[in-house]
């Protein structure tokens, strides 16, 4: 089980290739579900040129660990990985990676999606978008 908040860019596929978890025997897993969120270049009809992602150091990591543990209580999981960017982002940059390993695809899919919804609704991250004519804090989250 791993949680990472990164100040600099990351490649989600390289992260996954390099992640070996707690040596928990991936050959048991069978099913891996992954979600990758990347920065879009539009929002609410406006072109977005860049984004600043703020977080609450300490509380953010704690919250992501808490939901990772909770997911393992709700589903039979072998492992999970959450990576989230903070700082200055450009369109196309990966923002978030959530990966879940399980013996069963139903558990893997459901836990991965649940982790994303939990992360979006409660993990302390805030986005400020840079538009052509200034910047604005994002006030609403996108629907699940």
């Amino acid at each position, binding site marked *: 089980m791993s949680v990472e908040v990164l100040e600099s860019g990351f490649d989600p596929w390289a992260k996954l290739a390099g992640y070996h978890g707690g040596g928990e025997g991936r050959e048991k897993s069978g099913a891996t579900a992954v979600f990758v969120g990347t920065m879009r270049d539009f929002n609410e009809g406006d072109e977005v040129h860049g984004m600043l*992602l703020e*977080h609450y150091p300490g509380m953010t990591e704690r919250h992501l660990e808490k939901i990772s543990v909770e997911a393992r209580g709700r589903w039979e999981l072998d492992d999970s990985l959450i990576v989230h960017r903070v700082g200055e982002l450009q369109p196309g940059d990966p*923002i978030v990676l959530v990966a879940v390993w399980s013996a069963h695809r139903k558990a893997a899919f459901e836990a991965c999606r649940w982790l994303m919804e939990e992360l979006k609704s409660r*993990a302390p991250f805030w986005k400020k978008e840079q538009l052509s004519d200034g910047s604005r804090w*994002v006030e609403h989250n996108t629907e699940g």
Partner: protein
Amino acid sequence: MHVQVRFFASLREKAGFAERRLEVPAGTTVAEVWAQALPGEPLPDNVLAARNMEYVALDSPVQEGDEVAFFPPVTGGER
């Protein structure tokens, strides 16, 4: 007693500072910490509060040495 109050994102910009040490009376609640930190500034409806990095209700009491944080709705994940 003393608490450390912190603001994030748009609330940090509204407050004009990121954190401050406050002296508050015993029995002070989270909402009263806001009022003392930003006198005259109404508490937004959608504000979230954390005490020592755990979500907390606005009427919870605070204790000596607590870190009390206020922030707007969170917007992590993809967009």
